[in-house]
């Protein structure tokens, strides 16, 4: 923590038993230009904390308290962000979320945050894209260190539904394979895919619900309302790998998730059938330019 200097971009993450995913996750974000990682380990017993402690650019905090009662980890991270994030660009993601922004193959995240600073922009929006394998989920076996997007490399390109939340001013986005497969009869409960993961933090700021929206609510205006496009990214969500079936039954037992773990219940009943989310219109992930052409993200006026 002492190594953090002004201008550093920091990453914040809550996790539990994600030992296998960590090496690639940390590598991915290190290469993107993240200077320091903050993790809250919620009672892992698979060596997660030990692994993190061995990393020079990582600070890890351990708790066995309730994930649910900390508003799904938001409160824990909130405290860390307040304490260490003030004045920094802070990226808040889960261990299975991979940020993609315009030019991310040639420009570091620092280039993006410098540009956002110069444009007087304080927050950066993205849509969460659920990634899945071709074939049953159980067939996508993940090995430590691997790029999960090589195994779960497919996504839905154009079935997202957007509404504006008139109270918090954020967009509410639903859709993708989860809406298509698990919530086709009850779309209102399909998970929210709108995310604002990157924020020039100020100690007065707070995430309201996961990283879907913030206060003060002006931070949620990451979209243009007069027809233009604001620069935005995608959060590739590599959740649907061979570990998820076990994970969802474990999470279901803990009942520590949002809306009485409704999401996990739906997955679990769906997942126990080992579904194949792939369809002939699924799109194979190539790079950010593909996502920009598909209209899932935008360069805006960053050239």
């Amino acid at each position, binding site marked *: 923590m002492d190594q953090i200097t002004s201008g550093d971009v920091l990453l914040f993450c809550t996790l539990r038993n994600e030992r296998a995913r960590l090496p690639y996750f940390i590598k991915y974000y290190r290469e993107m230009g993240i200077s320091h990682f903050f993790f809250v380990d919620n009672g892992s017993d698979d060596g997660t904390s030990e692994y993190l402690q061995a990393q020079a650019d990582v600070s890890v905090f351990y708790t066995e308290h309730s994930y649910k009662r900390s508003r799904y980890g938001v409160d824990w991270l909130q405290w860390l962000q307040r304490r260490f994030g003030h004045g920094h660009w802070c990226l808040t993601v889960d261990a299975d979320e991979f940020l993609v922004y315009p030019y991310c193959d040639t420009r570091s995240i620092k280039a993006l945050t410098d540009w956002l600073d110069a444009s007087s922009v304080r927050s950066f929006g993205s849509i969460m894209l659920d990634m899945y394998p071709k074939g049953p989920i159980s067939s996508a076996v993940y090995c430590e260190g691997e790029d999960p997007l090589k195994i779960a490399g497919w996504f839905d390109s154009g079935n997202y539904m957007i509404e504006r939340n008139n109270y918090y001013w954020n967009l509410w986005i639903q859709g993708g394979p989860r809406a298509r497969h698990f919530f086709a009869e009850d779309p209102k409960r399909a998970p929210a895919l709108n995310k604002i993961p990157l924020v020039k933090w100020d100690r007065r700021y707070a995430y309201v619900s996961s990283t879907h929206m913030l206060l003060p609510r002006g931070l949620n205006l990451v979209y243009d309302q007069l027809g*233009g496009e604001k620069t935005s990214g995608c959060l590739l969500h590599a959740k649907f790998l061979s570990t998820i079936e076990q994970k969802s039954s474990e999470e279901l037992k803990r009942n520590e998730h949002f809306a009485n773990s409704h999401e996990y219940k739906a997955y679990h009943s769906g997942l126990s059938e080992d579904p194949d989310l792939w369809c002939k219109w699924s799109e194979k992930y190539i790079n950010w330019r593909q996502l920009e052409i598909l209209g899932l993200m935008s360069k*805006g006026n960053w050239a």
Partner: protein
Amino acid sequence: MSVGFVMLVHEALDRAAQVARHWAEHGKPVVIHVDKRVDGPTFEYFKGKLNDLGNVRFSERHACEWGNWSIVAATQSACELMLDSFPEVGHVYLASGSCMPLRPIQELQTYLDKRPRTDFIESVTTDEVDWTVGGLDQERFTLRFPFSWKKQRRLFDRYVDLQRRLKLTRRIPDGLTPHLGSQWWCLTRRTLSAILQDPRREEFDRYFKRVWIPDESYFQTLSRLYSTKIESRSLTLSKFDFQGKPHVFYDDHLQLLRRSDCFVARKIWPKAERLYRDFLAPEARALTMAEPNPLKIDRLFGRATERRTRGRAGLYMQGRFPNEGWENGKTSGRYSVFEGFTDLFADFEAWIARRTGNRVHGNLFAKDRVYFAGGDSVYNGAISDSAVLRDYNPGAFLTNLIWNTRGEHQCFQFGPADDQKITEFMATDRNAHISVISGAWAIPLFHSNQNFADLRKVAAQLQRIEAAHLDLLRMGKTKARVRIWSLAEFIENPMENLQTILDEIGGIGQRRLTEVPMMADLSGFGQFLQNLKNQGMSPHLMGDFPVIEDTSEKPKGSRPRLVK
């Protein structure tokens, strides 16, 4: 004669030092102004990095704030130092710490040597510019600006308003015609020294101290008094975006910058390692004498501004969610909606697909499911055929479908038995082409075997729904292209009507019709409507059908005659 560089530096000092060294080591004098707000130790460190170079000087330091006089004052003292210390300097090139030379210094020198009397300074009258921040152009010169635009925006705006209301103006000194232009110029010693040694300089300075953003007007205006030859353009490639902030160059712009043949570019991202490595490397290529040509870069940035201000029509996403009326097109392309056609023509879908080569769907908004072309359960973009998902946000369903099939023309069927929520969206969408044969829904009822009392109920309900739908299509704010025939009207001249529709869609169906769809048998239809009337319902949307058959001699299931 030599060119001398005046550099205004306030951040990324390491990079500025690197560029200054590059110029100095190539024998070009450099005078650097470092913003007074850079702290002492940092300044000393910066100075230390360059102290082995005999032709680098540091000028008197001013605290610079964007938009006010201090930047001009800094430029003046640095230029005076340049002209006094380096008598061999013929042109003075004003640059910033985030500028970078793109071409060997010798090429710039040769270019200037060939134009010894030319001043390169963008200088246009206020009537000609449309790029000013805050919309102030002429008023920059006639109002007063005691408040900071960046830090005291509200006071700034209010004070401007007040002066406008009270019609307070300042007098522009005699003989001056205000000109504006890029801050980055290259002036001859003759012009520059004439400006700096002008007997009226005190008067001019006093005036410009109260002008807003004088660094874009002081030299631009005064050089008009003395220069014998002004090339109104900057030798520095520097583009501003729609917010008035400079575009930044990164490593991935390398080829673009190289091909631009500009002499100097700004602003370079300080961490663009590759750009600094490549462009500051000792000359590795033969000298060229190409004219600067920033066209490609202009286009790149032009597109970026277009994307930021107008966006892609018909796209709804995390970065673009236009308010109603601001969409620049609610959908991304034209599409055709057919109502009643499949009731009148049994093989209509296949027929129109053949005639136009377009994608033809069934009833996309049917109550039970989405009938995609070919009966697919998932469609382009992984859109589901679930009616529940579709009805959850029908507008998103349609805009997604049209967006996902960009480059194709979608056709689909619609009718009163479908979910109606989408009607208003389609009616107000300029891209929708809606063709309606009203009352045609009665034909399948007529052919069905249902109990007559049930038929009557269904007919009444369908008629009510269709009537409301037609009202919506006829309302004032309708933007769709709508064509409505009653059934009776349509069958009077079906071929001509079909031809009209095909002509409108365009595509491959341009020729005269040679093949027509199979029309349903309507013998006895007039009597059927009369029976509905007798039962107390009033079928009116289909137009007038005589009860007495006049077409009874026609064979059943006939194809209508071709219009020759």
